[in-house]
């Protein structure tokens, strides 16, 4: 395995995901009724594309991501990675959580080393690799800090390189920047885009933010209100890095915001009923 800082990062061959009629239901903890989170969702995610999932709260975006990660199993339907069913979590699919999910008892470097060590890499080599990745996101010198000693933005950088270090085929990101402040969020988006352009992994990115979705995505997938289905897929044909103040960006913004608004109103109406 090779870990360069540019270009050589992405060694993974494929990373194509197919979801066929995926259905997932939950039992409501409060009243025991059945909730349909995903009702026969079908979606193809191309290898090396950056796909954002956008939709109103409770539309099943995170459920879909958890199924792709292998944390949850669908009730019916198929989810395939390179033609093979996804059954459990594994290092071919790196997950970046909204709450970072860094191990609080390990320092920053140990957190980045964790997956490398699980792969069987020895201490010295994994330490070198971890330091290289920390340098890539400007966290050199913070190796021995514990997660709680870092800001939210720094923690999310660590969470990102923790999975990039193990070189997964797929990157699954569940509202990763929702908990950081607006300025940091922009910087993290830029950094993520830069890293993605270097590695060209398949990325599935869940977000609430229309701007974030357009800024990052090759294709924006708009989901319907619960039960979750694909409402529309909007390819973003703008050169990167994108200017969020441009007219073209604004047109996408208007188009997608309208799609979302309809769905959000449905959620609101359902809650009021």
């Amino acid at each position, binding site marked *: 395995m090779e870990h360069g800082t540019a270009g050589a990062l992405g060694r993974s061959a494929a990373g194509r995901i197919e979801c066929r009629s995926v259905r997932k239901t939950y039992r409501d903890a409060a009243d025991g009724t059945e909730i349909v989170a995903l009702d026969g969702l079908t979606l193809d995610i191309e290898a090396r594309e950056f796909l954002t999932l956008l939709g109103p709260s409770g539309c099943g975006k995170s459920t879909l991501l958890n199924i792709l990660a292998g944390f949850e199993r669908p009730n019916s339907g198929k989810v395939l990675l390179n033609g093979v069913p996804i059954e459990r*979590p594994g*290092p071919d699919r790196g*997950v970046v959580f909204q709450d970072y999910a*860094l191990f609080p008892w390990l320092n920053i470097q140990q957190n980045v080393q964790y997956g490398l060590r699980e792969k069987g890499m020895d201490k010295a080599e994994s330490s070198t690799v971890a330091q290289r990745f920390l340098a890539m996101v400007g966290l050199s*010198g913070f190796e021995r800090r514990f997660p709680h*000693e870092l800001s939210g933005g720094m923690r999310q950088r660590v969470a990102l390189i923790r999975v990039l270090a193990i070189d997964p085929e797929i990157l699954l990101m569940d509202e990763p920047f929702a908990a950081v402040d607006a300025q940091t969020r922009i910087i993290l988006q830029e950094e993520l885009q830069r890293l993605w352009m270097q590695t060209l992994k398949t990325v599935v990115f869940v977000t609430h933010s229309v701007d974030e979705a357009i800024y990052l995505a090759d294709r924006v997938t708009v989901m319907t209100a619960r039960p979750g289905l694909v409402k529309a897929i909007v390819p973003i044909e703008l050169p990167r890095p994108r200017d969020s103040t441009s007219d073209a960006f604004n047109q996408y913004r208007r188009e997608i915001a309208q799609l979302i608004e309809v769905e959000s109103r449905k959620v609101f109406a359902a809650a009021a009923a």
Partner: protein
Amino acid sequence: MSGQDAVPEPVIARPGKWRFALAHAHSKIGWERMARRAVVPLVLLAIWQYASTVGFFDPSFVPSPVSVVTSWWQWIFGPRSELAWYSGTWLNYVYLSGWRVLVGFAIASTVGISAGVLIGWFELIRDMLDPIVQGLRPIPMTAWLPFATFIFGIREGAAIFLIAMGSFFPIAVSCTIGAEQTPKNLVRAALMLGTPPRKLLVRVVLPSALPYVFNGLRVGLGIAWVLVIVSEMLAVKGGIGYAMWTAYQFVRIDLIIAAMFTMGLLGLVSDRLLLLLSRRLLRWNTGLRAR
């Protein structure tokens, strides 16, 4: 630990080391604070001594601080003799009590941490073991004493059994809660990073439960000291509890008080040692606490 002084301090100041662990983690103890802390105990001692001197207390009931210290001194440093149990035996008694606590507590910790974490993590083990733990737990520890003495006789076994049993429960219960509280996302993160499911217990559950483990250990240790006194008064020979009971029978209030302070001292020192260890192992957790 962190030799990265060139780097700007990020969010929270780094927690203290050994020095601070002996007192409160969040503050330095200067001379002024030392003095402030000593005021009330010294005043109380002075009042006690004064009241004894002017004859406010009957010396055969309440000895003066000076006579307590004198008897204590003799108990520690006096010549040993077959006839005088109160002379020169202190160190040996401390050793006996300390040894019983250490052995009983070590057994309780080993069994309690393993059982507690397993019960908290594996549903099968919970279903099988939890009824026993929950069923035996309400029995007061002192209620085990006649049974233990009957089984083990007036020997070490009775005391150690009682101490181990008594400190087992708080340790096990606390570890169970700790394992149950393992954050779901940390387990998912570990699986995603390639940890095999069978290694989750060691990689995630145990470290994540560590604050609860230490909580249980501190409660358990306190109970161990209570039970060593109880069992030494009734079930085994030698030790501070034994000395205390003997002093009672010979109406030596001065020695009863000396034994009480001895126990307080032992409890304090052992608790601080445990706290020191936990501060050491839970350095990652210190910034998360309010105090």
